């Protein structure tokens, strides 16, 4: 199974964590966006939207990190508790996955990427919206150990990739959100192969924040 990715990208890292947790070996294809490796005819044939991550499972190509994570569990980890079979528990995992994409990661991108890619000044309104998203996550974590209940799920693997990236923003203090801070520490201690994520965060930091 070929996996096209960049280690610095949070969505790519969440898939790497999923594969690790499931014990799946991916054939890693590091893809350099700056060099346009996602715009070659071969890549476009596989994924016309030319995004990373992209999975190519023996001719079946799939993109969108969270869709890939669910696919890996359903295809190769049927007995895994990472994506519960109980419909209500599964629904909560999905809600968190959509929250991660549409609210948390989105607000981080809106606040942070203009600063690093367009050298724009920090927008305090956008920071407020990011802080609000952290407040929501803090509320979700009241009364449960992990993001969607008391055991580790795909929701944690997606969210931890995002949160570990945001932690790099120096004006952002994760300790203002005690439940998030405690959960983040727990993830660092209990997510299988967490060092894969950390290595990507460090790469991101070296590339964009030094």
């Amino acid at each position: 199974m070929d996996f096209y990715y960049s280690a610095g990208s949070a969505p790519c890292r969440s898939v790497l964590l999923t594969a690790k947790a499931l014990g799946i070996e991916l054939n890693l294809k590091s893809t350099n966006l700056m060099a346009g490796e996602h715009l070659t005819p071969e890549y476009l044939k596989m994924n016309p939207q030319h995004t990373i991550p992209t999975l190519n499972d023996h001719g079946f190509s799939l993109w969108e990190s969270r869709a890939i994570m669910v696919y890996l569990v359903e295809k190769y980890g049927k007995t895994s508790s990472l994506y519960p079979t109980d419909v209500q528990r599964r629904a909560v995992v999905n809600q968190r996955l959509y929250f991660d994409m549409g609210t948390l990661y989105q607000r981080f991108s809106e606040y942070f990427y203009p600063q690093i890619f367009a050298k724009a000044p920090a927008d305090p309104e956008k920071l407020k919206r990011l802080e609000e998203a952290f407040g929501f996550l803090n509320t979700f974590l009241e009364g449960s150990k992990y993001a969607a209940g008391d055991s580790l799920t795909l929701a944690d693997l997606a969210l931890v990739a995002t949160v570990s990236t945001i932690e790099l923003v120096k004006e952002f203090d994760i300790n203002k959100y005690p439940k998030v801070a405690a959960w983040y520490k727990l993830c660092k201690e209990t997510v299988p192969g967490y060092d894969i994520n950390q290595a990507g965060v460090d790469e991101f930091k070296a590339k964009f924040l030094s």
Partner: protein
Amino acid sequence: MAPLILYHFPPSAPSRAALLAIRNLNLDVEVKEVNLFQKEQINPEFIKINPQHCVPTMDDDGFVLWESRAIAQYLVESKAPDSGLYPSDIQERALTNQRLYFDLGTLYTRIRAICYPVLFLGETTIPEDKKKQLQEAFEWLNGFLEGRKWVAGDNLTIADLSILASIASIIHVGADISEYKNLAAWYENCKSLPGFEENDEGAKVFGGAVKGKLKEGF
């Protein structure tokens, strides 16, 4: 058993997507309107139900859930797993999920990037680069539909319903999809779906609100 409750605001595309799923599954529902234009979502009673205070929010006999696409998937899996609206084949399901995430992260995000500043930040024109980004999303969607009747295959899925809610909103703001042949044909097919008219009415209210603040057309 208490009926399914949907906290809904008709102009909101995600909210309409959840209602479209309910209509296509032919479920009984009690719709409770939460008027976002009147900021009713930040009433303490609603925050108690959903701390993220967004619509749609569903209450299924005490099980509360938000995020329209998670609601649609839950409703299929819990009420009508054999309906085909959320396929059981792993690859078809993966493609459905990819389209749902495409809608949230690309299509709807680009629609929102156009409409939000007009509705809430006093902008009166649509910047060219944002139009181009939307057109790019239309092109991708048009490509997904190449050789397929529906966005994730030959059968209708909740991804179609989610994308229909988004597309209807921007059509009523004035976007033209006619040059995207597959997309235009798909939209025609959608017109016979249960709840199409109801969705269209909400989209018209949304489109009218945006158009009313624009100096010139789309």
